């Protein structure tokens, strides 16, 4: 099985560069980053009615100058795990169908599994946080913690898994940027006292980032660009 000649076949440089070029072409064929981003943007926008459906006020504590209460949205607790599981199932079905049509398999299972597990874990942790709220008086830490266990954060972390699966640096950058947007309290100076509308700007920002990214990836991964 071994060869005694120094060059039994082609030139090593040519062989290696041809193998790399083939691998790159296969990855381009496999990538469909726009679809998960589009589906997750839709899921994010569709969450707005769930927040608008009503909220409950949980435990309150007295602090200097008033009271702080935990407010939660029962419909959102039901919506997110169901919507995300359905979204990841749809994404998996799309990738499988596409890989059959194109003749190239795709390793979508790690992404879908990570997405579903993260969605369920974060929903559970969020639910637990309502019944066992973190100590008050650490406003910024609590705000970041609340965002860290949010569905948006679960989406961002799962996108990092997709970036690894698709070996896409662009998606790594996008996923990290999205996580920054999710974790950093973004405000344009608005003041929303009405709890039914409190989460709307958040959902609009997160959904818009995903939607714009989906459009960007769709343009970048156009078939005619791949052929060029």
């Amino acid at each position: 099985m071994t060869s005694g000649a120094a060059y039994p076949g082609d030139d090593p440089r040519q062989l290696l560069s041809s193998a790399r070029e083939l691998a790159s072409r296969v990855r381009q064929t496999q990538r469909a980053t726009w679809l998960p981003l589009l589906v997750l943007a839709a899921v994010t926008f569709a969450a707005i009615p769930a927040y608008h459906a009503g909220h409950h006020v949980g435990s309150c504590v007295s602090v200097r100058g008033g009271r702080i209460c935990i407010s939660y949205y029962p419909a959102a607790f039901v919506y997110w795990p169901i919507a995300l599981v359905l979204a990841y199932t749809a994404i998996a079905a799309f990738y499988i169908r596409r890989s059959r049509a194109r003749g190239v398999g795709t390793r979508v299972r790690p992404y879908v599994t990570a997405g579903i597990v993260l969605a369920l874990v974060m929903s559970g942790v969020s639910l637990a946080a309502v019944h066992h709220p973190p100590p008050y008086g650490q406003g910024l830490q609590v705000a970041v913690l609340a965002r860290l266990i949010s569905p948006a954060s679960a989406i961002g972390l799962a996108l990092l898994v997709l970036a690894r699966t698709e070996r896409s640096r662009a998606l790594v950058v996008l996923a990290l940027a999205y996580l920054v947007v999710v974790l950093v309290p973004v405000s344009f100076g608005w003041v929303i006292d009405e709890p039914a509308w409190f989460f709307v700007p958040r959902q609009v920002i997160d959904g818009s980032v995903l939607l714009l990214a989906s459009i960007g990836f769709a343009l970048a991964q156009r078939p005619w660009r791949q052929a060029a």
Partner: protein
Amino acid sequence: MTTHPANGLDDVVHQRVRLGILTVAHEAVRVEFSYLKDALGLTAGNLSQHLGVLENAGLVSIEKGYAGKRARTWISLTRAGRAALAEEIARLKLLISRVEQGDGAAG
């Protein structure tokens, strides 16, 4: 005295088309015959010959089935195939680095 990296090359793998088949099969979970044919620019007969060599060496597994009414042939890499590909790539890199370092025996 060290062994020259070319001495460890596997004749089954150290060939442009077969290395290409293994590379594509490695990137995809499994790849369809017609995709491989187009990607490598081969005729069906030529590709079948190379696949036969790889299958006999235990480096790929070939699965035949149907997608609707269309007959399909799917190729996937075996564990031995993954190891052989990794070994080939490592040896190619070593060969290239030897050449770049001015190793007369390699060039």
